[in-house]
């Protein structure tokens, strides 16, 4: 990110990194003359930037976090995937064997399918429902502020809590959902929401959508509010129907928000293990297993760190492209 680009060009803060042509040199000259060792300082400033001394002190803690707690572990994860590494035991280099094991494992393929279904439908429904509610709330309504605050609650509650509440609602014998649906004659017999292999993944996706929609809604609402009224007025004068103005004014105006939100949410949704972990533990018979839960079960209770790392990295090519894309979009947004 070109942080300096946004500052007025004549400010002291914006000297280019080489410092070749600043008027600061004149002001510095005095200091340098008075202090012979200043020539070194001057060289270093030319090489590392005008404020290098202070800047490197200020930036040091965050670099320690970035390198020590994120970059190093991340590289370590990639390496681990080439090792057989039980917890607390000796690591043994085994090349691509972990990946080989996974490709022959039915559970891995099942997880791949589930992760894709889970992510695509989760993100898809969240986008659709979020858009409908944003459009509804983007009108003059009584108590709009309160409505917004209320509709936002599921997203602010810890996901563990959300998931447990739904596990109780889904409970097969005493759960309220079965009872209500049965009384309303929507079902003839109680449904095993989290233990029927055909239903479990969809029951979980419903909770994912329930929890995540508020975030989409709020972002879309902010996007809608940034579309100028004049555009709608112009469309009206040109005789556009409501649908046409939605199609040609609202959607283009929402484009950037839509891209950012779905991109970020795809990364977050596909890597969230709490819903599956709590609602079904991946069961029955791995029918709701996704990569994050499989990675956890393999590495920590299963004690195979290497194999677990390989599972966690299974999605990485796709994830990496999303991260790069997402990073670009965020950086561009910051520069605008």
């Amino acid at each position, binding site marked *: *990110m070109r*942080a*300096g680009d946004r*500052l007025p060009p004549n*400010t*002291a*803060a914006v*000297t280019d*990194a080489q410092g070749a042509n600043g008027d600061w040199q004149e002001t510095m000259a005095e200091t340098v003359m008075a202090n012979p060792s200043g020539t070194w300082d001057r060289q270093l400033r030319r090489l590392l930037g005008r404020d*290098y001394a202070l*800047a490197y002190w*200020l*930036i040091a*803690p*965050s670099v320690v976090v970035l390198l020590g707690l994120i970059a*190093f*572990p991340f590289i370590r*994860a990639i390496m681990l995937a080439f090792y057989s590494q039980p917890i607390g035991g000796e690591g043994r280099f085994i090349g691509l064997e972990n990946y080989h094991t996974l490709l022959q494992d039915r559970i891995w393929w099942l997880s791949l399918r589930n992760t894709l279904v889970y992510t695509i439908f989760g993100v898809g429904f969240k986008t659709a429902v979020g858009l409908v*509610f944003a459009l*509804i709330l983007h*009108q003059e*309504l009584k108590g709009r502020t309160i*409505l*917004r605050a*209320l*509709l*936002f*609650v599921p*997203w*602010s*509650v*810890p996901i*563990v809590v*959300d998931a*447990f*509440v739904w596990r*109780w609602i889904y409970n097969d014998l005493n759960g*309220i959902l079965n009872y209500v649906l049965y009384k309303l004659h929507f079902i003839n017999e109680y449904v095993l929401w989290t233990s029927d292999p055909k239903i479990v993944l969809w029951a979980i996706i419903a909770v994912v959508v329930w929890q995540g929609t508020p*975030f989409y809604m*709020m*972002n879309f609402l902010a*996007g809608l509010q*940034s579309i100028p*009224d004049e555009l709608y007025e112009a469309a009206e004068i040109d005789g*556009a129907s409501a649908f046409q103005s939605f199609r040609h004014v609202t959607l283009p105006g929402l484009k950037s*928000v839509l891209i950012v*939100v779905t991109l*970020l949410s795809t990364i977050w949704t596909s*890597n969230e293990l709490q819903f599956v*972990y709590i609602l079904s533990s991946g069961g029955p018979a791995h029918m709701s297993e996704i990569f994050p839960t499989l990675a*956890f079960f393999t*590495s920590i209770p299963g004690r195979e*760190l290497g194999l677990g790392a390989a599972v*966690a*990295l299974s999605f990485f090519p796709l994830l990496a492209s*999303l991260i790069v894309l997402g*990073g670009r979009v*965020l*950086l561009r947004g*910051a520069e605008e």
Partner: protein
Amino acid sequence: MRNPGGIWRSGWRLFTWPVLGVGLLWTLFPFYWMLTTALKPNDDMYRPEPLLVPVRITLSHFHKVFFDSHFPEYFRNSTIVALATTVLSLLVGIFAAYAIVRLDFRGKNLIARGLIFSYLVPPVLLFIPLFELIFKVGLLNTREGLILAYLTFTVPFTTWLLMGYFRTVPVALEEAALVDGCTRLMALFRIILPLSMPAIVVTALFSFTLSWNEFLFALTFTSNPVSQTVTVGLTSTVAEDVFFWGVMMAASFLIAIPPVVLYLLGQRWVVRGLTAGAVKG
């Protein structure tokens, strides 16, 4: 919003309240159900016909959470870990953001990029190597280990958010101070920070709730009440596949209070915060 086309618009209006009604029911019923479950005596909870409205109210589940469980410890741990993470990441973030936005040094673009990309790296890619690291330095089952791990998501986030805000503080103010003989650090503390108070409060609020709500790291790095937080604590109330729903819902209710209150307070900034300035609005 102006919706031209009379029929369509009135159709949309008719459609509004039913959809909102369903949406509100869908959104809020689970919380109603959580609270009423927490208040029902066990006899009323496991009846063949669940009671939509509780006929008898008991505080025994809450009593159990407070006086006969590990929850006081979980709450203490969560509070300590979330507060420490917040303070540390603010310290790290304020200095880094200031340097990146205002100072001239080599490597600054690289660090800014590193921050945004690490903000997007999901914890699932980090928990295994971090487990190894924390295990090796002997910090498994400690709050310190958790705090270290939580910095991996709060630091990039905090720095990124503060960078965006520091940029909006006019450079001229700081220049004037520098001319008057302020050092850079004095300018940061006397000019930038006071002007950025709203952003700092919101950032703190975020770090706190993100840490409070975190689950995967806590699940991986802690295994006893000495260091477990509320989120993992909740899962450990399940004993041998037996769920004590009354106690669980009472605990869930209590756990949800701090983040809900904080989000309602900071709601306005929440959206802008999470997409970190990419969405204008």
